């Protein structure tokens, strides 16, 4: 199980260390600043209904679609007053976690 690994650079407080990486470290999820205009699935599941279309004006709290997961129907709601830019899922589609479902934009652009 222990395979020889090559040495890589790990920077800690300005010093560069020659060292091996673990599989877990290499596979770690790199942080990305979330885009408030993208709505991702928080759980894998099936889209059972979509209530909006692109260019619709939607108020904060309105339900955009239903995502069924763990035998529960999750209402995916509009986080702020705004407009639907694009919808990337179809009815009855099964999607994984962190799948981009809807792109939106706020009502007033400053």
């Amino acid at each position: 199980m222990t395979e020889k690994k090559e040495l890589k650079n790990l920077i800690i407080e300005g010093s560069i260390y020659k060292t091996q990486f673990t599989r877990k470290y290499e596979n770690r999820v790199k942080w990305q600043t979330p885009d408030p205009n993208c709505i991702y699935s928080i759980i894998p599941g099936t889209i059972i209904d979509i209530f909006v279309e692109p260019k619709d004006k939607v108020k904060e709290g309105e339900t955009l679609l239903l995502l069924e997961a763990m035998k529960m129907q999750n209402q995916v709601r509009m986080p702020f007053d705004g407009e639907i830019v694009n919808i990337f899922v179809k009815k009855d589609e099964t999607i994984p976690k962190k799948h981009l479902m809807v792109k939106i934009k706020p009502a007033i652009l400053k």
Partner: protein
Amino acid sequence: MSLRNNILDLRKRKREIQKGGGDKAIEKQVQMGKMTARERILALLDKNSFYEYDLFVEHSAKDFGMESKVLHGDGVIIGTGTIYNKPVCIFAQDFTVAGGSLGLMHARKITKIMDHALKMRVPLIGINDSGGARIQEGVNSLAGYGEIFFRNTLASGVIPQISVILGPCAGGAVYSPALTDFVFVVENISKMFITGPGVIKSVLGEEISMEELGGAKVHAELTGNAHFYATSELECFDQIKKLISFIPRNNNTKAFPFPPKQPLKGEKIEDIVPVDPRIPYDMREIIKSISDSSEFLEVMEHFAPNIIVGFGRMGGDTVGFVANQPMVLAGVLDTDSSDKAARFIRYCDAFNIPLVTLEDLPGYLPGVDQEHAGVIRHGAKILYAYSEATVAKITVIIRKAYGGGYIAMNSRHLRADFVFAWPTAEIAVMGPEGAANIVFRKEISEAENPELVRQQKIQEYKEKFANPYVAAAQGYIDEVIEPEETRERILHALKVSENKDVLLPKKKHGIPPF
């Protein structure tokens, strides 16, 4: 009248039950590459040392046609025996009998031998190979699991508890091994998970094989649920025997002493370590150059390999080694390595095993993933474990000892008994590069040639602070020693610590950061 007939009848009854689930089921077990429960016990224990109890126990279930079913021994074998002539209690689930499923009487047999182990203060070994709860027995099987978990907790820190996963161990059943001290897994045979691939697929739509979800490798490398990984059952039994030879049979005794032996003659200890603190080496070589016969039993070898923990002997007595591994992730502390070390330290403390800490680390691993995974909470465990430990605590600082990592690795401030440093040790708040950038920020940024000044300042800082003498001047280091002296200084420190006695404030128990 002769007893002959009764004896023959007894033998016949025993033979019948000892066949477990019968030839067909045994054949299936063999096809899966597995030994039977009885073969496993016999292979693990000393020859002719096993004595069985509760062979004639039968289930009392009445529903779903169970009343007409005969389950030999109710799917589990319990008994006592010896390993290296030292007593152990053991149970082994028999997958050939109703898939090793756990019903009320099955659980009662297990709890009987657990009670016995705790009362007699001898190690408990559990071989798990079970499809899970016996559904036909409903809430009675849940009760059975609960009774086992409770006893695991009660016995924790009193007797060594060893779990051997030699088949499936799913659902609630996984919590018994998780509560024990050491979990052994075998490639292609062990499978552990809370919810299996079937449920995960139907509920979440994620497809994964049993092996990828909860196979031996996953638990040895990724989850940290397993402590020992073997490629065959026989190799696994050898590992268990070796472990048993290193640990005391209960918390009131010390591990059985061996005749003291010199380390094998290998590379000179000072030639193992490069002077440049940024260049790695294998810390296991240092451990082997100071332990008796260069022997070292590594625990959790594949999980968080940036820290090394395990058992060796010095002067014939067992010690627990905790050492940073510069070869992997520069030897940093992170969530996993802190968990790993803290648990091992607490094990050693509970079972009177002195701790030898070998230090060479640049600090904690930076990263959003680390912070969000709770490196504060996890990192605190190692501080807690070292502070709380009252066994002899000896530290040798080989090279880097920077910042929070220096404090965490059994520093004087956490009441280490002896702290030694090699002349290569750098005990400082951080590495010279980082420190120079902060301390001389203004000079560097205002210089005509900032890079040149930066390098000068790094060099300046190095000469002034990247050594063991600043800390030694404060008495934080007891002595700066030559690498060649390491073993004799530790041996002497262990001797002096033999009757160590410290009083901690009276309390029910602390609240360690879990």
